[in-house]
């Protein structure tokens, strides 16, 4: 075991670890203390003026611009991809002297059927296509089907796969089964990056969220992600704090950096800034880049555009002034 627990200077991809049940046994989370930390953190940090503008631009680069709807069509996805390539009006970027920053969103996230359309629409942009997979959002289709779905999306050109874990394994504390499942998903991903969705709103307690996070990383996850966006409760700051602490713990144990993706409910600039503060405080600036942080969001970008225009002009902006995605 000792050989695999070492610190890496470079940003190597997490290979996963053998199953270490003792890594989750000692995990303890005190919910009221976690909630107090969040309450005070939001009051302890703030960014104003050009700092706020810069941080909001950073947030854009972290967005997984997402459409996951039964009525998605190629046209709809092409429009979204165009927005991903050019998320902010060029005159606004010029006013911020950021016109040469080649600002794009972090990725475009779609269902498997839309992967080829998105891949084609994004050629040359460097923007990755992420596919939700494994019977998203419930994850209750046959295991073979789920694995086949991953392989199909990778073949179609998705370089990031957002899988959903089997919540029942967490609820029954069957950590080995969860580990095996995620390890199989990782294997099926090959070179594609694995983002494991915990559906934290369905896991019952904060301790379970922490333990599930640790198991997923141990089984080879590149990202841990809060929610599908379909649960009653999606990303929350307290849950995010716990997942970030587990990422830190995994890094301390193994030297591998795991990414974090809160998803669902992050729709305004203020919330996005609070998440950036949270990640900066818990994990440091290194994590404030698309390789390690993403927002699963569909309407956040629109709010950020309006805030940026307000910063530049001093006037409150309107939605119809910004090109839709």
């Amino acid at each position, binding site marked *: 075991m000792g050989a695999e627990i070492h610190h890496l200077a470079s940003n190597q991809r997490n290979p996963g670890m053998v199953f270490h049940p003792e890594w989750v046994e000692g995990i*303890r*989370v*005190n*919910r*009221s*203390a*976690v*909630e*107090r*930390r969040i309450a*005070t953190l939001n*009051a*302890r*940090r*703030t*960014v*104003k*003026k*050009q*700092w706020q*503008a*810069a*941080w909001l*631009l*950073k947030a854009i680069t972290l967005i997984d611009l997402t459409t996951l709807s039964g009525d998605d069509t190629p046209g709809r996805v092409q429009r979204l991809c165009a927005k991903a390539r050019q998320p902010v009006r060029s005159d606004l970027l010029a006013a*911020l*002297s*950021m016109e040469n*920053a080649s600002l794009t969103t972090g990725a475009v996230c779609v269902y498997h059927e839309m992967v080829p359309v998105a891949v084609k629409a994004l050629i040359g942009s460097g923007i990755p296509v992420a596919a939700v997979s494994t019977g998203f959002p419930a994850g209750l289709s046959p295991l073979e089907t789920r694995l086949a779905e991953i392989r199909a999306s990778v073949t179609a050109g998705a370089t990031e796969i957002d899988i959903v874990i089997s919540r029942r394994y967490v609820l029954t504390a069957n950590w080995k089964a969860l580990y095996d499942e995620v390890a199989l998903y990782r294997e099926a991903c090959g070179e594609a990056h694995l983002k494991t969705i915990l559906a934290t709103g369905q896991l019952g*307690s*904060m*301790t379970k969220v922490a333990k599930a996070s640790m198991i997923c990383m141990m089984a080879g996850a590149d990202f841990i992600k809060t929610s599908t966006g379909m649960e009653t409760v999606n990303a929350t700051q307290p849950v995010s704090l716990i997942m970030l*602490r587990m990422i830190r713990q995994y890094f301390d144990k193994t030297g591998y950096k795991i990414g974090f993706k809160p998803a669902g409910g992050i729709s305004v600039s203020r919330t996005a800034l609070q998440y*950036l503060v949270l990640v*900066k*405080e818990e994990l*440091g*600036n290194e994590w*404030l880049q698309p390789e390690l942080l993403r927002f699963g969001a569909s309407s956040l970008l629109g709010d950020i555009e309006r805030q940026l225009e307000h910063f530049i002009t001093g006037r409150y902006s309107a939605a119809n002034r910004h090109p839709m995605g």
Partner: protein
Amino acid sequence: MSVAEIFDTMNYGPAPEDASYVRDWLKEHKSGFSHYIGGEWVKPSPTAYFDDTNPADGKLLAKIANGSRQDVDAAVEAASAAHAKWSALAGHTRARYLYALARLIQKNSRFISVLESLDNGKTLRETRDIDIPLAARHFYYHAGWAQLLDQELPDYQSLGVVGQIIPWNFPFLMLSWKIAPALAAGNVIVLKPAEFTSLTALYFAQLCEEAGLPAGVVNIITGAGKTGAAMVEHPGIAKIAFTGSTDVGRIIRASTAGSGKKLTLELGGKSPFIVFEDADLDSAVEGLVDAIWFNQGQVCCAGSRLLVEEGVADELIAKIKQRLSHFRIGDPLDKAMDMGAIIDPVQRANIDKLVEQGVAEGATKWQPDVPMPEKGCFYPPTLLTDVSPANIAVREEIFGPVLTVMSFRSLDDAVALANNSRYGLASSIWSENINRALEMASQIKAGIVWVNSANQFDAACGFGGYRESGFGREGGREGMFEYLKPKHDWAAKGDVVIAAPDPVGRSEMAGLGAIDRTPKNYIGGKQARPDGGNTATILNHKGEFAGRVGQGNRKDIRNAVEAAYLNKCWAVRTAYNRAQILYYIAENLSVRADEFTARLRDLTGASKAKAEAEVKASISRLFSYGAWADKYDGQVHTPPVQNVALAVKEPIGIIGAVCPDNAPLLNFVSLMAPIIGTGNRAVMIPSERYALIGTDFYQILETSDLPGGVVNIVTGSRDEMAKVLAEHDQLDALWYHGSAQGAAMVERLSIGNLKRTWVNHGKARDWVDRTTGEGRRFLREATQVKNIWLPYGD
């Protein structure tokens, strides 16, 4: 800095709060702030002002009136004049004033927050989110007490003029803790803010004007130690409420001794922060941030001693260092700061001195490599590891952002280390095991226990400490008693100290019929011959020889206190068990009722009927405290967070009781029974004149299943015994009934360990009357409240 640069570095920028309108207010008072006396702004007499500076930049903020003795006299006079009317107002009317003040604080909360931050150097985040909202909460809560007082505490009345001296670390919050309950109870106030931080108190005086508070009800006097001393010594002040250092607390205790002034002292602390291996360590680190890096560690209840279970010590220390590596220290008005400025260069030098002494004694100092402001009075968060319990940094209150770290092996070890302190204010316990947390909470000697949290405050939960952290509580029902006195207490006439008649006739050997009885002291459950080997003669009411008792000395007291100390079982016996023993004592007294009746008649000359009545009342009294033993319950508070706070009534420990002479059997029982019924151990000094009653009584105790050391009886000279008891640092409280001079002596000499005293100031008590002779009044003196905060949620 350009957007592009920030985009790359993702640094924080400045986020200053606008203070211009507060500075405008200060400009309006450029010529100097006056005192607020009798509803008027009164210039100091003689004219004297001192400078008030902003610790964050050292710049002058204002000139403040330096209060003289005359100024204090004027304020006390104005307050006195307002008392009759104010205290006679209907509770509802007082409630409306308090409510108006609460609303005014809320409506001006940002102004007060900014002013406080400027004056004190603490971060705006703390004044805005903690200090000022809590201050408003205190006025709301106590508006409620004003409303309910008549119905809830009908047998109590206000004290009169209350002198309040508050510290600089939470100027406005401490003002609210002091003023709100005092006003609710119907008192009038002379308050002196600390000289470093007078401004928000003066602003509060403006709010009093705006609320239409009657002139003289609240008076604000500014000044330094001398002004405070004038208040402490002022004969027109009925009570001093002080929050500050233990050293000054001692001076105040000594200075008010014998004056009859009621006193509450909220003093220093060296509070333990205990982390078990099954704690949520990341959350414990944030708890430490709240505990010791809150208000730059200038907090009396700061968790300044980290005790961590050995197996997770390295991990926790690494996490703390990691956490501190991105601490932000600087401009207190910047909304993104973790720590602001230290109050004054003097305080900063004190902190540094203690830290360096700690290092000289072997501590390893660690401070994070974070940017520090170039100007102003700042001190970095500091960890001291490799310390032993003997290190000065572990023993002394540093009152700065300095945490000492020690490890422990087991719960018992943690208890021992936690309690190895002269202080006992607060504590914090981190464990996910509720059994462990509550076991620890029950064993810790501190007035406040925060489980899995730190520095939580609410007006409904009493705040105050054990041991040298002071006495009295602020907040909650228990806090109301500090500003009230019973309507029926010491007022009864009668002799407390009864002189023996001149000896006549009958010599000791004259009655050679009975076998000679030689009463001894009763110590540790055994009869013990007095150390000095001397005895004193007790005469009956005619002056004839009645018997001999031991002539107790220092060493007898030492032995009695030691025997009490060694008894560890009594406090943890069930209340049911203590009740049974009290009933058993009553039963045994009843069996020997005739003998005690005869003894009383012979000694005191009481009629048969009167002596019988005293014995009967004594039996009844034992029943009363048997009854109370399992009924004097604590409370469960529900502060406005997801939390329950258990207000547990705990015994104080070892209480000495010096008995008066009137009703010698009944007063002995009336003092002993509440002490032991609530789980304390007693050192009883029976009536000096009728000491045979005390020595007769131990024969009853011997047959009543009372464990050794719970009650110890030493006979001897009242004031000699009282002196030794008052000076004994293992004794936790002393009740004295004797002369006014004796009472003053007891108060004056109690300062060694700041033991709680309850003295009669030379007045008598009617022991027979149940309203004055027994009940909650006695139980309250025998107990202290520990508030255990239990947040919940999974």
